[in-house]
């Protein structure tokens, strides 16, 4: 079972029972155990590698020695044959055959140890990778646990024993509420501006016929086209004209 599936099983098993603290403690315990196992395995593999490399060196040394012994014996055999001493040549040849057998065996040993060295190196590399990954997983689990502890502390701080976790949903509701409040405030401000501002007063005064309607262009033209005195006298009953008369008297136009 992979480490992650062990932890996931643990999460599923305890999520509804004992609570998070147990899960986290166990998750970290599992990871720590895996870490220890891998560290031990790594140390053992490295020790084994050193041993095998030393053995290989010894075997290689023996091989070199056997090679030179072989060369030496070949010389003896050739010497004995040259002297016509067939019996001596045969005696040495028997020894030479032993040397050659040992040489082959030693070569086989070295080859076997070379392949052991190769697989040990591969195993060490993969254990080292696994160790780095484990350490990272432990850090992540520990940090996740710290985040959960922190969030739990914040929840407790907000509402004492009856802890309630503040979520994005709460924030979304607050945002919407604030937007509504802001909208309502804006409407109220506009309403207030409308009621108290100049615009509304002018509109109401014009409606009551108390102020001059600036859009009454026809009235102005009519007034100016007709003989001034007559118009002023004739139309004096119109509220607008009366007001103009009042304004003229106020500003001293009329004597």
């Amino acid at each position, binding site marked *: 079972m992979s480490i992650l599936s062990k932890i996931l099983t643990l*999460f599923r098993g305890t*999520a509804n029972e004992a*609570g*998070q603290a147990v*899960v986290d403690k166990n998750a970290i315990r599992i990871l720590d155990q895996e870490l220890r196992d891998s560290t031990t395995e790594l140390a053992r593999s490295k020790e084994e590698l050193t041993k095998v490399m030393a053995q290989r060196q010894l075997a290689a040394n023996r091989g070199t020695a056997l090679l030179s012994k072989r060369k030496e014996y070949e010389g003896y055999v050739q010497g004995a044959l040259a002297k016509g001493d067939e019996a001596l040549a045969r005696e040495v040849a028997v020894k030479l055959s032993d040397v050659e057998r040992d040489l082959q065996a030693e070569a086989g040993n070295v080859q076997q140890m070379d392949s052991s060295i190769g697989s040990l190196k591969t195993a060490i590399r993969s254990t080292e990778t696994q160790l780095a990954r484990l350490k*990272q997983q432990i*850090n*992540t689990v*520990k*940090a*996740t646990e*710290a*985040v*959960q*502890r*922190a*969030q*739990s*502390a*914040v*929840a407790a701080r907000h509402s004492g024993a009856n*802890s309630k*976790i*503040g*979520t*994005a*949903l*709460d*924030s*979304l*509701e*607050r*945002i919407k509420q*604030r937007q509504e409040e802001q909208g309502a405030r804006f409407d109220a401000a506009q309403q207030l501006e409308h009621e108290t501002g100049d615009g509304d007063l002018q509109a109401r005064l014009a409606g009551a016929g108390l102020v001059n309607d600036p859009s009454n262009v026809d009235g102005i033209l009519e007034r100016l086209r007709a003989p001034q005195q007559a118009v002023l006298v004739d139309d004096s009953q119109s509220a607008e004209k009366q007001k103009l008369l009042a304004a003229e008297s106020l500003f001293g136009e009329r004597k």
Partner: protein
Amino acid sequence: MSHWTQQQLLQCLADTFGAANVAALEDAERAYQVVLPDSGDLEVTLVAGEDQIYCSTPLVTADQVSDRAGFNDACMRLNPINPLSNLGLSTVDGQDVYVVFGELSGDSTQAQIIHEIRMLAVNAIDAIETLKPFLVNA
């Protein structure tokens, strides 16, 4: 190891979000809380781990979800298109809580940390708005 000391990280957060909105949590080691007034007082938790900085904010508690299967499915679909943040399920005080979280390298710059926090808040609000049909009283 993160190159940020506790004091530096607090200062960095306070400079951006205002000292009143930033606090170191005494209850958890190297954990900080940031309140974002612009995001409806959303609270983001930061933890400076050994070689990473973790940011997380609770999305919604599982008991507020009416359709867990639909919600989970929607979360998995949202996840790949969520810039910088991930959606996940966590347990706080024995309660299942959906979280939005992100991880930063321990030697991230101030700008990267601030960006991550802001994105986390935006993503969390976006996500919960999107996922509202799966919630209780939706």
